[in-house]
């Protein structure tokens, strides 16, 4: 697999794009919610789960995917969808709950769907894993060379759906790649207090699925491992489990006091910021200068400002649209019956 300058600069730019997006969304989110935190106030009411710190995983995996490869994500989905290639304006508008958003403002930040990119996510922990297996089954039955990818956290690896999904994916040798983003905490519960195995990569062996652990802060490592897994799936050789050990730089949700974190650990992890790590590697190779990095940052900031302006200027969906795009419209009485 070629680790070319073009590829790695692309990964760098993608990580900067995700980070810049997330940090700007954090600023927007707190508008109107301070000094006394009011979750219902501001332009983006409700909960907010941001992806800062884990960018290497989304960027490294999605760099191998095509728009028609299905991806399921989690309650922390922004990074995955950005890396999949979403239109930032429509994504930002959805986060704002506007009519121009991906789901016409009815999904919000945790329920982003993009049919063109075959992307879905949701707040049910582990809920996306069986969906990816279903998509992979469809791909296999149709004889296509697409790959279904599911991102989920290490907490989700303790629920039944994870094990049922791995079992069927292995049994049917499906073109699926399972990405465990092990950021060490399921909300506030450390993995050591919830999980009997040290590494979820060990769980692949129980189902006969090749499983590897990678440094989720190193985008080059993620890119290399994911590339092998995706190609393996496209060749019809079955599923792979990748455990990317990473860390979220913000709380589980915005406003999380993070009392559960041992003192100093976040600062330690920030020493291994995935963007800074790649920047150093690129600079050592003479592939990136400070000026290049500055230009990329400015370009991404401008893109996101454009998306934000689009979202702010867009209208809210009218009340009478509350029930549209919510239920599937039956196309024929027969179909209606079968749904009934």
């Amino acid at each position: 697999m070629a680790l070319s300058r073009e590829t790695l600069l692309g990964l760098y730019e993608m990580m900067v794009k995700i980070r810049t997006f997330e940090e700007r969304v954090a600023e927007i989110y707190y508008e109107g919610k301070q000094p006394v935190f009011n979750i219902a106030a501001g332009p983006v009411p409700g909960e907010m789960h941001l992806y800062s710190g884990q960018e290497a995983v989304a960027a490294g995996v999605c760099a191998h995917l095509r728009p028609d490869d299905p991806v399921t994500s989690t309650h922390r989905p922004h990074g995955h969808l950005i890396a999949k290639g979403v239109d930032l304006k429509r994504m930002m508008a959805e986060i704002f709950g506007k009519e121009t958003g991906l789901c016409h403002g009815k999904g919000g930040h945790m329920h982003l769907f993009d049919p063109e990119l075959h992307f879905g996510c949701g707040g049910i922990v582990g809920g996306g894993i069986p969906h990816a297996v279903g998509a992979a089954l469809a791909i296999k039955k149709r004889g296509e060379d697409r790959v279904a990818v599911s991102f989920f956290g290490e907490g989700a690896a303790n629920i039944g759906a994870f094990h049922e999904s791995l079992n069927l994916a292995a049994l049917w040798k499906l073109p699926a790649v399972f990405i465990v983003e092990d950021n060490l905490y399921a909300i506030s519960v450390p993995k050591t207090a919830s999980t009997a195995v040290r590494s979820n990569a060990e769980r692949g062996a129980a189902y006969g699925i090749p499983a590897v652990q990678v440094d989720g802060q190193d985008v080059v490592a993620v890119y290399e491992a994911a590339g092998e897994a995706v190609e393996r799936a496209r060749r019809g050789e079955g599923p792979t489990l990748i455990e990317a050990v990473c860390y979220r730089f913000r709380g589980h949700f915005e406003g999380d006091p993070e009392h559960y974190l041992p003192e100093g650990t976040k600062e330690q992890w920030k020493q291994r910021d995935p963007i800074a790590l790649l920047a150093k590697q690129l600079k050592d190779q003479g592939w990136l200068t400070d000026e290049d990095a500055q230009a990329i940052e400015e370009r991404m900031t401008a893109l996101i400002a454009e998306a934000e302006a689009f979202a702010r200027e867009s209208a809210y969906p009218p009340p009478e649209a509350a029930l549209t795009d919510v239920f599937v419209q039956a196309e024929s009485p027969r179909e209606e019956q079968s749904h009934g």
Partner: protein
Amino acid sequence: MIMIPAAGGTMQPAVGLIANPASGKDIRRLIAHGSVFDNNEKANIIRRVLQALDAFGVKQVLAMPDLYGLVLRALEDTQVGLRVEFVNISVTNTAADSRLAAAVMAQAGVRCIVTVGGDGTNRVVAQGCGDVPLVPISTGTNNVFPSLVESTLAGMAAAAVACDVEPVWDRAVRQARRLEIVRGNTLVETALVDVVVYDERFVATRAIWDADKMRALFLTAPYRGTIGASAIAAYLPQAEEVARDAAGLYVELGPGGTHVMAPIAPGLIVPVSVRVVHPLELEQTIPVTYAPSILALDGEREVPVPPGTSVGVRLSSHGPYVVDVQAALQAAVKAGFFIRKP
């Protein structure tokens, strides 16, 4: 030899224990057919080591702490009379833990250190253990330095070393060689088995599996019957001839050479083109000018050689002391170490 003072002021034989919770999960499970080694099995291995040490007179074990608590888990289901203590290090969950733990154990005066891991684990332990011999137990099928040995037996051998059974040290402990990576006069890294100059720039997933990217190979010894990069020379008749009078080997790789079918990873047997095999003498330094490249140490990409830079690879006799488990057991048998009065 330094002894660990016990509570009552007497000297107690102590053994170090370093188990790497991260070994056995790298990309070789995906690109080759590497064995899966889970941490519950590692805890099992540790239980067997502890039982053997306890049965043959070791009173204290100094263990490396880790976030998973491998040794703690092993102790949960094991009844042993010996005392297990953890070295006081700040756990980072990186290779640095093993290096630092080995140094602290050596300072504390353990008689030997049992390692549970692969070539990479032993490489970093060797950087900290000084003259304390290692008893390496392999956790996988891709290792050369540690043996695939039943851990009960490794524990018995470690006990014989720790209890200073008379002929064991002479007959079963040898000093290994190492390869030293130097920039100018500065030692930057070491390897215990091999160094490969790999045509890539980044550490990434660490493993190396593309033979076309291998430009040169350095070996601490003319290995036979091994797997990994060392296998390239191990199955080559010319290498055996050159190795007859040499300490180590320096092998130039690239198009136009003899093709040897080498198992460079478990189940991954590929043709590798070998151009020239050179003897490598002790203290001889070979410059690596192929840049950009990355040096893979004992099978793991580790030291980038950016464009316009160079490093040297030197064969040294200053590797770690290593216990040959079978030889130690044989020597201990002769000394009656395993005999107890009914």
